[in-house]
Every structure is written in structure tokens, then in C-alpha cells.
């Protein structure tokens, strides 16, 4: 019988946060190689509890960030999101395709949109493959989608969707920077309580 994880249990939260941190560090190498620039993982925070508290953990701000998101579905529930300030997201995409424009994009162009989604596919794909290997759980995702808006507005829908399936979740928030470009961002992984239980059952 699987043990129920009390989401406030620090040992278990720490264990799975460490696992996710290791996987995200490894998967960021794939993007680093693609850009030929080092990506530094600066800090990892984790928060667990009701989805409502996870939404409210993010300070409400009107700053605009580009978010690329994928939902984890079927035999697990969760979401993966990559956030960067819109200017940074555009510069990261331009670096990948080696195209530089002097004009800044006030809205994300089709080209930038496609590049960022493909990057998310590579980054999240590598991350989920790593987690699947360790946990022996196949994690299936939706296709990536992109929006440029306030962080809280972008997270509402993803957290709400998960909240319809599960009351509690774990969020792991990783800050990264690409020093040569002076760009930075965050990767957010949210998984529901039963997914945490399933993974812990396999890695304990």
C-alpha cells in the first residue's frame, strides 16, 4: 500500500525536491549545448500544500513575463512552466537561431514563439525522461503553449486545472541565469500529491 505523503513532511518534500533539482540541472545541459552558453542554476525553492496556497506563493505583480507551459497528464497530474521576462525570452530565442534584430519585439513573433516552444520541448522532454527513468512512471505531456502576461495570470489556469483533480501539490521553482547574455528566468514544476506519492514509492 502506498504511503500518503503529508505535503508538509520536510524529509519527503526535500527528497523529491532534490530529485527534481538534479533532473532540471541535467536537462538544462541540453539547452546549454544548443545555445553554446553556460546555464547556471542559482536557487531552488519548493512549496507544498493546497494549490490555492501555491498560486498565492507567487507575489502578484504586473510585470510581463513570457511563459511556455506543458501539462503533465494521464497517469500523473502536473505542469511544467518556463518563465522569462519578455525581452530575455526573445534574446534567448534569437541566440538559439543565431538571428539578431535591433528592433525589440513588443509582441512575441511567430518565429520566437516556435523557437521557445521547441526549447521547452527539449528542456522539459529531457527532464521528464530523467524522472521517468528514476521512477519508472511514464510522464505524458500536452504540446507546449506560450503566453506573455503577468505570472500570476499564467499560473491561475494551470494550478486551477490541477486543483480540480487534487487538493494538494508540490511546486519546485528553479531560478537560472545565462551570464554571457545577462538573461535569467525560472522553471516551475508543479505535481499533485498522488504523483509525488507514486514517484516516492519508486525512489525510496
Amino acid at each position, binding site marked *: 500500500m502506498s504511503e500518503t505523503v503529508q505535503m508538509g513532511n520536510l524529509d519527503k518534500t526535500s527528497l523529491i525536491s532534490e530529485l527534481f533539482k538534479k533532473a532540471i540541472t541535467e536537462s538544462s545541459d541540453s539547452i546549454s549545448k544548443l545555445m553554446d552558453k553556460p546555464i547556471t542554476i542559482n536557487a531552488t525553492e519548493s512549496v507544498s500544500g493546497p494549490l*490555492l496556497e501555491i*498560486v*498565492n506563493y507567487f507575489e*502578484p*505583480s*504586473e510585470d*510581463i513575463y513570457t511563459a511556455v*507551459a*506543458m*501539462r503533465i497528464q494521464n497517469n500523473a497530474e502536473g505542469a511544467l512552466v518556463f518563465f522569462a521576462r519578455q525581452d530575455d525570452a526573445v534574446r534567448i530565442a534569437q541566440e538559439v537561431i543565431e538571428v539578431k534584430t535591433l528592433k525589440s519585439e*513588443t*509582441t512575441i513573433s511567430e518565429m520566437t514563439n516556435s523557437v521557445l516552444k521547441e526549447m521547452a520541448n527539449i528542456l522539459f522532454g529531457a527532464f521528464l525522461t530523467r524522472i521517468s527513468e528514476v521512477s519508472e512512471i511514464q510522464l505524458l505531456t*500536452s*504540446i*507546449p*503553449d506560450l*503566453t*506573455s*502576461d*503577468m*505570472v*500570476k*495570470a*499564467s*499560473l*491561475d*489556469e*494551470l*494550478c*486551477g*486545472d490541477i*486543483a*480540480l483533480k487534487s*487538493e494538494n501539490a508540490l511546486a519546485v521553482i528553479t531560478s537560472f541565469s545565462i551570464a554571457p547574455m545577462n538573461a535569467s528566468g525560472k522553471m516551475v514544476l508543479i505535481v499533485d500529491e498522488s504523483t509525488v506519492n507514486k514517484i516516492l514509492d519508486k525512489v525510496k
Partner: protein
Amino acid sequence: MRNKVVRTGQIEVAKDDEILEALGIGSCVIVCLYDRSKKLGGMAHIMLPEKSLLPENRRHQVSAPAEFVDDGINNLIKLLQKHGGELDSFEVKLFGGAEMFGNIRPAPESLGTINLNAVKKIIEDLGLEVVSEDVGGNTGRSLKFFLSSGDVEVRKRL
């Protein structure tokens, strides 16, 4: 003049020269009720549709005052009535219910659309009239509700 920020799942009531504010609204729905004669109003920042959509074993979970549409509207009305507001006098304004990631769960199944439909049904059942709304679409919103006039300022990205 005093500003109160209403966070997800919360309800606030204010009056006269106070301002109620909500930032970064995506698929959540904001319900503003206003009793013009008393310059009294309230805001519910609702995250999810009716509790009845949850699996049976979760319907009695302890939730925040406006986590669900049904609780959110009922709790807001009760709180306003406690402060002297009268149901028949309430003007209703609705905001939010956006579809931020259309490819992940497009309308009519998007959470924003489900939330909005649930809110509108309850408002209609209560016999209240929606005097203005800025809902749906695919952009986030920030709001300021001025209790002195009942006006609501909506800010969105271009």
C-alpha cells in the same frame, strides 16, 4: 484612501473612499457587488467552479472563502449583508475568466470559461443583474474597484 489587495480565494468588503484591488487575474473570476446607496461593495477572487464538480471525497474539504464559485458568491453576499448591504440593491460586475493557454485546454472546456458559466448561472438564479463585464479572451487583467463611485478600472497588456 485605503487599498486592499484581494488575493486568490479571498473576499474583501469595503466602503466610501476605499479601493479593492486584484492583480494578475487569468482564469479566475472576480465578482464585484456594489450597493450604490450605501457606497458599500465587495470583491470575491474565485479560482474554481462549483464544489460539486469535485470527486465525492473532496466536496467537504476545508476551502478558502472564495476558492469555489458557489461558496465565493454566497460568502460575499453574506458578508455584505452583515455590513448593511441589501441583496436587491446589488449591482454585479464580472471580470476575468481568460483562457491563458488555448492549446492546453481550449474553450469551451477551458477553466476560465467553466468558471464564468458557473458564476453567471448563480448570479441569474439569485435574480441579480450584471451591469458590466470584461471577461474571457486570452489576456490577464488587473483591477481596481473604487467604492466611492462603484467604478472598476481594468488594466491589460496590449
